[in-house]
């Protein structure tokens, strides 16, 4: 479909431009064709989505719609073996800088929303989230990950790693995390993992 559209449009452009114009528009043409003829990044993303889905999962986090800077940082950290996670360390090992940039951009551009099947406003975790997490984690554009809808065990392990100082975090986050009781942590995780990620049809 796409290629028919391209060949159609290209031939249309060619028809419009006589040889004189062709040279003039050659750069434009090149730009038009280029994104479709480079190395197939789509296949790289297929490796990711063989495990990362936007459907409910028991551990593997949703990466769709996460901020580009966050995804990029995460992949770079996995590759540099800074974040302990054996599978992702091994997969990131095969990615070039260009691959990482492209994948981060690709998955961040996916649009998602969230749904929940229970009365989330009554959830005791909501208040704790609003007081201690939301100020930064609602600002997804700043390269801070969206926590909503992440799996329970994944969040639990991540928080443990933060507490042990083995995942890098800003000082403010260190403050909030170290001042959160076990019960509070549990409630926040329960609240966040109660959401379902819903892809917006792209």
């Amino acid at each position: 479909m796409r290629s028919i559209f391209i060949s159609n449009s290209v031939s249309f452009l060619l028809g419009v431009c006589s040889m004189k114009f062709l040279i003039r528009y050659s750069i434009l043409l090149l730009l038009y064709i280029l994104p479709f003829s480079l190395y197939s990044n789509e296949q790289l993303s297929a490796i990711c989505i063989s495990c990362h889905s936007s459907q409910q999962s028991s551990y593997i986090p949703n990466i769709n719609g996460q901020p580009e800077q966050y995804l990029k940082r995460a992949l770079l950290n996995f590759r540099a073996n800074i974040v302990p996670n054996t599978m992702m360390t091994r997969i990131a090992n095969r990615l070039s800088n260009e691959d990482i940039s492209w994948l981060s951009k690709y998955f961040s551009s996916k649009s998602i929303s969230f749904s929940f099947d229970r009365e989330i406003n009554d959830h005791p975790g909501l208040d704790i989230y609003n007081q201690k997490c939301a100020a930064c984690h609602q600002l997804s554009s700043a390269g801070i990950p969206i926590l909503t809808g992440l799996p329970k065990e994944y969040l639990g392990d991540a928080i443990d790693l933060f507490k042990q100082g083995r995942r890098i975090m800003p000082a403010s986050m260190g403050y909030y995390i170290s001042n959160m009781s076990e019960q509070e942590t549990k409630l926040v995780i329960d609240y966040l993992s109660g959401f379902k990620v819903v892809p917006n049809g792209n």
Partner: protein
Amino acid sequence: MAINNNKRTFIKALLSMPLIGGGLYFGLKFSRPKIVVVGGGCAGLEFIESIIDKIDVDITLIEEKPAYHSCFMSNAALVEMKEHPKIKFDYQTFIKRAGIRFIQDKALSIDSNTKRIICASGEYVEYDYLITAPGIGFIYDNVEGVSENNTLSYPHGWKGEQSFLALKDKLQQLPDGQPFIIIAPDKIYKCPPGPYERAGLVADYLRHHKPNSYVLILDSKSSFTKQDAFVEGWKKHYQFGTQNSLIKYLSKEAGGQVTRIKGNKVFAKAGTFESECINFIPRQRAGDFALNNGLTNASGWCPINFDTMASTLLPNTYVLGDAAIAGDMPKSAFSAANQARICANAVVAEITKTTLKPSVYHNVCYSLIAPNYGISISAAYKRDYDDPWIRLIPEQTGITPLQSEPWIYRAESRQALDTFNRIIASKFNK
């Protein structure tokens, strides 16, 4: 005049190009390429999902069974591990969602002259491109006393529901004190870590249900995949290597090669073992459909073009998944799905007459050793044009490191489930 002529040509060109393009589009739309997929396993279904996203084609799936029975996660289902996923799925939801034609029939033969597939019912289907994912078949030639006729007495549990249920029944009926004997095949076979994952999960089951029984692995090989990680896990969970071990392992060198099975007795080089539950996993080859239609070579597997997955033996025919000789890639669901997507790209490039972009070859495979304890391998492969093979890249490949922290093994057991849901179960979701 000259200017006018130019103008006229210009306007003509302006008007005609979209018309030609449009005509081309509608022409293609009404004579959509006919793609027939034989075999509704992971590879066949992934191919269909992948290609319908890219191009408008007419797809027919031919599959003998009304439901898919997964090999992935079947060891967890065999021992009814807590929270084990459902492994049997009806094709109907997939068919409806993908909007394809489904023929529940046994594909028998390929007529490559008339481009037809002839089914057991006598019906035939025409194709422009034939995608085959025929899976595996078994060879019963190296162990005396077992054949296709009595395979259910020594169920492999390696393919299909019938054998799986027979094995499950034998496990549950196993008298306490007798070993659960796994006879592991020599390379090359489907799911290389499968026998060893089964050993761990069955050992866990025996501990709870038959405390005097143990698992005995009789192997025709000298070593197996992820062996160090498996052995480490077995030591942690099943006292492997001690007198009380719940798993006993005899490699080829230790006399694990089996020569004969008679009744409840297994005759191996190391001695004779007795059990009412003998899990004999035979040597393997490509499925019958591949064998009967000239898709296999002397190795019993199907040679393919590594860039497109096209058969090197039959025109307009592609081979995906377990049946194919895919270089260093193992016979796993993840590999099959990877190959299916590569093939979909190749078929699209062929139909649209565009250049095929280089492919990404990757495999990920999780194995459970006990409930909440998993290990994994991630492997990268490359295609070099002067090297006729899909070659493993060792420096970009790795197994769960030994002596990892406990949370990592737990996390990997969860990731195994997620990956199963992603590449198998989600295909059958509404």
